[in-house]
């Protein structure tokens, strides 16, 4: 995955290039004073299906438009903020407050924020009307409608204030607005005065100047950006290079400034040994590797078969052999509040092929069965290797799997979202709260329930938990939901979170990302005066 397809990139980096697995402490390559200018050159394994954040839930789309649009609230960024922080800060809102009953939220908008100077928006000021347009559009046709389903009404008392009324308390609302999907769009976009599928005009730090689908995206610095002097860089070029070896070669020859597709420790070591100027970061990703089943397709309608699949897979072996590190995950991923501890997850769904065979026999398929497993090459080679590992594990219990490898757009928009599969493997959205994960995937009407899960008891548990105002009680309820899912649903199987390397040219500085899909941290990234990205021919 490219950096823009792998938003949870890094927070820590190493100056000991010989062993990226033994990072000697925090060093973000922050030496020196920021120098404006230069083009940041990145690679993506796959391109966005479209630029419309209302239509697409794909990471590729949101990573692409995350540079262009802003959110009301965002996760805090900066050199002193640890990766994966829970601290929020205003983006388009300067502040927000909640009524004592938790039912009314008021957002105070930043004044003087200008949209990018592109027709038909033409650099006009961002106001509360745009928030209302965005909310209306999401409610009418947005794939993010689940994210705002707890809000009954939204109004704009004045140009810089928005008030939202909820049916029940929802303490995590600020995190919803800081999450992966709730970009603020101009009314011209939601009212179809320009095509959101192919054009993006926002208030973010960069504006798209060129998009050739499946080839490249070119971004230029937004001169109207509301933070004076930022971003430092003049632009970003994202080239689509599906082949990870070619990406690594481009980094070696300084045709790219960063690569996130080399994920094997020994390969990273070899690469930095022969290119000492490269520095490496390693950070736990928020996107779990998952195996999922379509419960409308036999025999996956049988809980025992789904449990057998779960017990057949050697998660720890995968982490040890295919990733630089990782943590076993339950339905709620382990970096998020409300997740089960990996040890408990392991005890609830152990690696037990013998038991898996017994479950298959009890389900009436003692000799196993044949099935196709949906995968995509759009997540990079490592995910394909993980799929082959799972394939071998399942074969050992009698489930003969054939890989159905599809391009990313077909995989995500047609086969996965269209539920045209029986079994699949891939990466899941790096949701940042337990509620996001549970409502999106496990709620019977969840926007990302592409597994045909329909369990009224589970629905009730999820909605009871989300309105719980006491944070400790909510976390306890979320853990109970995870236990219930493992025992009674066993699908999708979030196998683990994994650590990932990102390799940067030594001339890059100020890199402090956060795991959400936007890349606002890039406003603080800068490059040396002799960086290749400053050369006109580069």
């Amino acid at each position, binding site marked *: 995955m490219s950096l823009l397809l792998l938003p949870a990139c890094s927070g820590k980096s190493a100056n000991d290039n010989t062993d990226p697995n033994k990072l000697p402490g925090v060093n973000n390559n922050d030496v020196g004073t920021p120098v404006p200018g230069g083009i940041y050159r990145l690679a993506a394994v796959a391109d966005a299906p479209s630029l419309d954040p209302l239509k697409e839930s794909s990471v590729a789309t949101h990573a692409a438009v995350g540079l262009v649009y802003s959110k009301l609230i965002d996760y805090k960024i900066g050199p002193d903020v640890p990766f994966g922080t829970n601290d929020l800060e205003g983006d388009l809102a300067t502040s927000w407050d909640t009524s004592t009953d938790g039912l009314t939220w008021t957002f105070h908008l930043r004044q003087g924020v200008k949209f990018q100077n592109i027709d038909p928006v033409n650099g006009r000021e961002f106001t509360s009307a745009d928030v209302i347009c965005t909310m209306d559009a999401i409610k009418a046709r947005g794939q993010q409608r689940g994210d705002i389903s707890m809000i009954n009404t939204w109004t704009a008392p004045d140009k810089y204030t928005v008030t939202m009324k909820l049916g029940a308390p929802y303490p995590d609302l600020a995190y919803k607005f800081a999450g992966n999907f709730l970009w603020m769009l101009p009314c011209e976009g939601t009212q179809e005065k320009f095509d959101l599928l192919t054009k993006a005009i926002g208030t973010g730090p960069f504006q798209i100047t060129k998009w050739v689908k499946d080839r490249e995206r070119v971004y230029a610095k937004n001169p109207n950006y509301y933070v004076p002097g930022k971003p430092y860089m003049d632009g970003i070029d994202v080239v689509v290079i*599906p*082949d*990870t*070896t070619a990406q*690594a070669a481009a980094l070696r020859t300084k045709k790219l400034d960063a690569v996130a597709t*080399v994920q*094997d420790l*020994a*390969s990273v*070591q*070899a*690469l930095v040994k*022969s290119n000492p100027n490269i520095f490496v970061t390693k950070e736990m990703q928020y996107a779990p590797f998952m195996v999922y089943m379509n419960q409308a397709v036999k025999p996956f309608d049988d809980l025992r078969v789904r449990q057998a699949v779960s017990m057949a897979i050697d998660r720890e*072996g995968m982490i040890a*052999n295919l990733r630089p590190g990782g943590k076993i995950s339950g339905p709620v991923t382990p970096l998020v509040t409300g997740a089960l501890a990996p040890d408990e997850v392991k005890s609830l769904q152990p690696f037990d092929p013998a038991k898996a065979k017994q479950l298959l026999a009890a389900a009436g398929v003692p000799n196993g069965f044949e099935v196709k497993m949906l995968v995509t*090459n759009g997540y990079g*080679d490592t995910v*394909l*290797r993980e*799929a*082959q*590992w799972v*394939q*071998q594990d399942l074969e050992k219990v009698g489930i003969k799997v054939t*890989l159905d*490898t*599809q391009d990313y757009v077909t995989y995500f928009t047609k086969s996965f979202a269209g539920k045209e599969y029986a079994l699949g493997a891939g990466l899941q959205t790096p949701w940042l709260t337990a509620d996001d994960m549970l409502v999106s995937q496990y709620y019977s009407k969840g926007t990302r329930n592409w597994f045909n899960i329909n369990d009224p008891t589970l629905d009730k548990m999820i909605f009871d938990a989300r309105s719980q105002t006491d944070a400790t009680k909510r976390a306890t309820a979320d853990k109970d939901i995870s236990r219930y899912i493992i025992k009674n649903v066993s699908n999708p199987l979030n196998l683990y979170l994994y650590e990932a390397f990102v390799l940067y040219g030594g001339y890059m500085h100020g890199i402090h990302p956060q795991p959400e899909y936007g890349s606002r941290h890039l406003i603080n990234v800068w490059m040396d005066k002799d960086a290749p990205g400053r050369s006109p021919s580069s």
Partner: protein
Amino acid sequence: MVTTTTTTAATTAPARTATWRRSRWWEFVRTQRLATVALVIIVLFVVAAIFAPLLAPYGATEQIRTAIRHAPDGRYWFGTDDLGRDIYSRVLYGARTSILISVTTVVVSGAIGTAIGVLSGYFGGRWLDSLLQRIMDAIIAVPGLVLLLFLAAVLGPSIRNTIIALIILIVPAFSRVARGEMLRVREEPYVEAARANGCGTVRILVRHGLPNLFAPLIVVTSLLFAGVLIAESALSFLGIGTPPPTASWGRMLSEGTRFLEIAPWMVVFPGGALTLAVLAFNILGDGLRDFLDPRSRR
């Protein structure tokens, strides 16, 4: 007496033919020594492909998880790959994949291309010949790799689709050779004589046309085998040929390049097998051309 003579003639003719064939083989072996070595190598590859399940110590996709990226040694002769699969076994099974694809592609495209060439060359009136040859020209006009990439991308990665893409690519090569030869043969005096004696079209084609096609087609086939091997490997290398986890030399090369610095054996052995096979088919093709075409020996 008459009966005896007839019997003698009947038994000596096949014997003479067999003797002639044997002498031709020996002549080939004697005059084309390099090509003979190439033929032996090809036979070894075919044997390896057919008997891969017996010769390979492990399954093609079997993951030995205690030996991931294990260097070559007495147990794993060619080492193991990034999923712990035995590379020696995968090279053997890869031969099976490559030869399956090559043979199927060459046989099917040979049949289609020859039929088109014969139709075009023997029967070809103004419109039929023009129509068929313009279609062939259109296929040839597109660079081979570009056409393959397009077809493979449209059809999707699978062995069947790889074969279909390769067939479309090489049909014109057979068609052109067959057409050229048929244009020559149909004007030969012995064909005219056969026609004058009342021989039907089918008989003329079978007795006089196809035997004349044999020599040029066998040379083209041998050379195209090498091209198909390379093309299949290129497609798999680019990720749109044989899908994972199928053992194919191209895919093994593609997977191995990522580990070139730390596990070069992942590339060296499938790359070596591919190089050797392609070289063998090319040398055999050259040898057959020299042997079967008297003009090239002058």
